[in-house]
C-alpha cells in the first residue's frame, strides 16, 4: 500500500504513524472498480447499510427490552407505546430484518447469475454463505424475543429439529433450551446471542470485503479487468451510485415501515406466548419459507434436517460444482434458462413453505426440493461440460466483439490527488 501525502498536517502526522488515512484512500477512494457494473452491484453496499441500521436500532431496543418470559411481550408493547418514537425504532428493526434478507437474496442471485463465485473469488463467495448462515441464526433468535405465539412456537419447532440427531439429539435439545421446554433460560440466552451475532456478522463482512478487494468486483460481462481503461476509482463514481441506491432502498423501506409495518409479520405474534395453546399453523418468517418447505418435503425428520442444511451446503461447494470457465450468464444461453428456473423454483418453495403440509402441496414441495438439488448437483456440473457458450468480448472497454478498443481514460479527470 502506497503512503499518501496528505495536505492537512494533523492528518499527515497521524497517517505517518498510523496509516489509516492511506488505507481508507486506497480501499475506498482510488480502489479501481470495473466501470460497467449495473445496479445489481448496489446490493452489496446496501446489505452493509442494512446491517448498520439493524445494529443501531437493535442497541436502542435492547436498552428498553426485558428478556424475561413474564415481561418480554409487555416490554415490547411499552416500547411501542411509551418510549419516545419507540414504535419507529421497533418497526425499523422488525421490517429491517425482512429488507436485509431481500437485499441479501438479490445479492446472492446476482452472484449466481454472473458467476461471481468462480475463481478467484471462491472464498469471497463462501464467506458470503457464512454471513447468510449467521444472519439466519440471528434473525431466528431475534424473532423469539417479543415472546408472541409465533416466537414461542417457532422456537419450539426449530430447536426440536436438533432432536433428529441420532443418539445425542434429545440431550442437545435440553442443552439448547437450558431446561425441558422453551422457557425463560431459552429466552435469556437467545437475547444474549442475538446481541452477539451481529458483531460476528460484521467481522465476517470485513473478511468478505478484504477478499473482495483482493481481485475487485466481478462485472456483468464476467471477464477480467484488462487494464486501467476498464476501471474507474471507487470514489466518487461508485460512492455516488451507492448513495443513489441507498436512497431508493430507503424510500421503499420507509413506505413499509410507515404505512404497512405489519404486512410481512404474522398477526399471531401480537398474541402473548402461550405454551398450552398451539397455533393452527406454525409458519416461520417469510425469509425462511423456502428452507421450511424443504424441511417438510422430506418424510423423515433427520432427512428433512439434512436436506435443509444441505440446501445451504451446496452453496458452499458451488464453485466446484459449476466448472464452466465463463462466469457471466450473459454468455451462457442454456445456463441462463436454468438460472431463471432456479429462481422460480425458490419462489415456489417459499410459497409452499407457507402452505399446510397436505395434499398437492406435499407433492409440489418434493418436486421443487428435487429440482433445487438437481440444479446444483446435476445441471451445473453437466453444463460445465456440454454447454456451448457465446464468444466473450475482448475487454470491458470493447464490449462489442472485434470492435475497436476505446480509451476509457477520461474517467481519471475527476480524480485529483488529495481532493
Amino acid at each position, binding site marked *: 500500500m502506497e503512503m499518501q501525502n496528505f495536505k492537512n498536517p494533523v492528518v499527515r502526522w497521524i497517517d505517518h504513524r498510523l496509516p489509516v488515512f492511506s488505507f481508507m484512500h486506497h480501499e475506498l477512494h482510488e480502489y479501481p472498480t470495473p466501470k460497467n457494473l449495473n445496479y445489481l452491484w448496489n446490493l452489496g453496499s446496501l446489505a452493509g447499510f442494512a446491517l448498520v441500521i439493524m445494529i443501531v436500532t437493535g442497541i436502542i431496543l435492547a436498552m428498553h427490552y426485558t428478556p424475561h418470559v413474564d415481561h418480554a411481550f409487555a416490554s415490547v408493547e411499552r416500547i411501542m407505546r411509551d418510549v419516545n418514537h419507540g414504535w419507529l425504532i421497533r418497526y425499523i428493526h422488525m421490517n429491517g430484518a425482512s429488507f436485509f434478507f431481500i437485499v441479501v437474496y438479490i445479492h446472492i442471485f446476482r452472484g449466481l447469475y454472473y458467476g461471481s463465485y468462480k475463481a478467484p473469488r471462491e472464498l469471497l463467495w463462501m464467506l458470503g454463505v457464512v454471513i447468510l448462515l449467521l444472519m439466519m441464526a440471528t434473525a431466528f433468535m431475534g424473532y423469539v424475543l417479543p415472546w408472541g405465539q409465533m416466537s414461542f412456537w417457532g422456537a419450539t419447532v426449530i430447536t426440536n429439529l436438533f432432536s433428529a440427531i441420532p443418539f445425542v439429539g434429545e440431550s442437545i435439545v435440553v442443552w439448547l433450551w437450558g431446561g425441558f421446554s422453551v422457557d425463560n433460560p431459552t429466552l435469556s440466552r437467545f437475547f444474549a446471542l442475538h446481541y452477539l451475532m451481529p458483531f460476528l456478522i460484521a467481522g465476517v463482512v470485513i473478511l468478505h470485503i478484504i477478499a473482495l478487494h483482493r481481485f475487485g468486483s466481478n462485472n456483468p460481462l464476467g471477464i477480467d479487468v484488462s487494464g486501467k481503461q476498464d476501471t474507474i476509482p471507487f470514489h466518487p463514481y461508485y460512492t455516488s451510485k451507492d*448513495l443513489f441506491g441507498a436512497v431508493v432502498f430507503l*424510500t421503499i423501506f420507509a413506505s413499509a415501515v*410507515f404505512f404497512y409495518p405489519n404486512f410481512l409479520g404474522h398477526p399471531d405474534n401480537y398474541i402473548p406466548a402461550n405454551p398450552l395453546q398451539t397455533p393452527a399453523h406454525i409458519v416461520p418468517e*417469510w425469509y425462511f*419459507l423456502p428452507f421450511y418447505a424443504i424441511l417438510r418435503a422430506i418424510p423423515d425428520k433427520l432427512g428433512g434436517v439434512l436436506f435443509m442444511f444441505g440446501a445451504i451446503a451446496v452453496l458452499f461447494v458451488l464453485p466446484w460444482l459449476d466448472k464452466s470457465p465463463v462466469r457471466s450468464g450473459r454468455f451462457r444461453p442454456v445456463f441462463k434458462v436454468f438460472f431463471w428456473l432456479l429462481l422460480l423454483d425458490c419462489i415456489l418453495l417459499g410459497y409452499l413453505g407457507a402452505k399446510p403440509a397436505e395434499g398437492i402441496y406435499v407433492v409440489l414441495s418434493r418436486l421443487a426440493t428435487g429440482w433445487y438439488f438437481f440444479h446444483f448437483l446435476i445441471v451445473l456440473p453437466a453444463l460445465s461440460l456440454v454447454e456451448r457458450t457465446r464468444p466473450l468480448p475482448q475487454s470491458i472497454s470493447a464490449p462489442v466483439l472485434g470492435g475497436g478498443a476505446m480509451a476509457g481514460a477520461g474517467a481519471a479527470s475527476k480524480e485529483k490527488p488529495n481532493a
Partner: protein
Amino acid sequence: MRSLKSITLSLALTLGMLTAAQNVYAAGSGGTITERDWTFSGPFGYFDQASLQRGFQVYREVCSGCHGLDYIAFRNFADLGYNEAEIKAIAAEFEVTDGPNDEGEMFIRAGIPADRYPSPYANENAARAANGGAYPPDLSLMIKARPNGANYLYSLLTGYADAPAGVEMPDGMHYNSAYSGHLIAMPQPLYGDDVTLADGSDASIEALAADVVTFLAWTSEPELEARKRTGIAAMIFLLVMCFVSYGSMRYVWSDVKK
C-alpha cells in the same frame, strides 16, 4: 438500457418474494368477512375522534364486562379528544387496588390518569371460571392480532345468526358466520340500541360495531396517526433525495465513456 433492465429485475425479484410472503398470512379464517372502508386505513389514514369516543363508550358499557384493555392507561385517552380534566374525571369513576400502604394493607382508591384500565377479572383462572372455561382475551392488540383485523372484528360482531338447519350447536356455543368453524363461545355482544350514545348518534348494530372497531384499532396502534404523518414527510424528503442523488450521480458519471 442495461441498468433499466437490472432495476426491473430487482423489483420483479422483490415483488415475487413479497407476494409469496404475503400469501402466507392471508391464509385464513374460513369465515365470511365484510370489507369496509375505515378512516384509519391507507397512507393518509386517521382516527375519527367522535367515533373513538363512541367506541370507547361501547367498549366500556358492553365489552369491558369480560375483556380487559391491559396496555391502555387513562392518560392515553387524550388521543380520543378528552382534555386533562375530562381524563381525570373518567379515571376517578374507576376503583383501583393500590398498596401496600404504610400499614402493609392493600387499599382501594379512585383511579388517576396514570393508572392502566382495570381488568374485569383478577386473573385468567377467574375469567375462565366465569365464562364456562373460555378465556375472553385482552382487546388492546386485538386488531393487530388477527389477519385483516378491523374487517374481521366488524364481521364477527355483526355475524351472529341462528344456526342453519342441520348444524348441531354444542352447549354454550353460538353460531357466527365470520368465526373460523362458525362456533364461538362468546355470546352475541351487540344487538343494536344496546348503548345510548352520548352524542345521540345512530346506535344500529352496524354503527356500534364500526365505532368499537375504530376504538380498538386505536388501542392496537395508538401511534398510527403520528406514524402515517411522519411517513408522508419522510416520503416527500426521500423522493426529493432520489432526484438529488440521481442527478449528482449522473453529473459524476458524465465523463465515463461506455
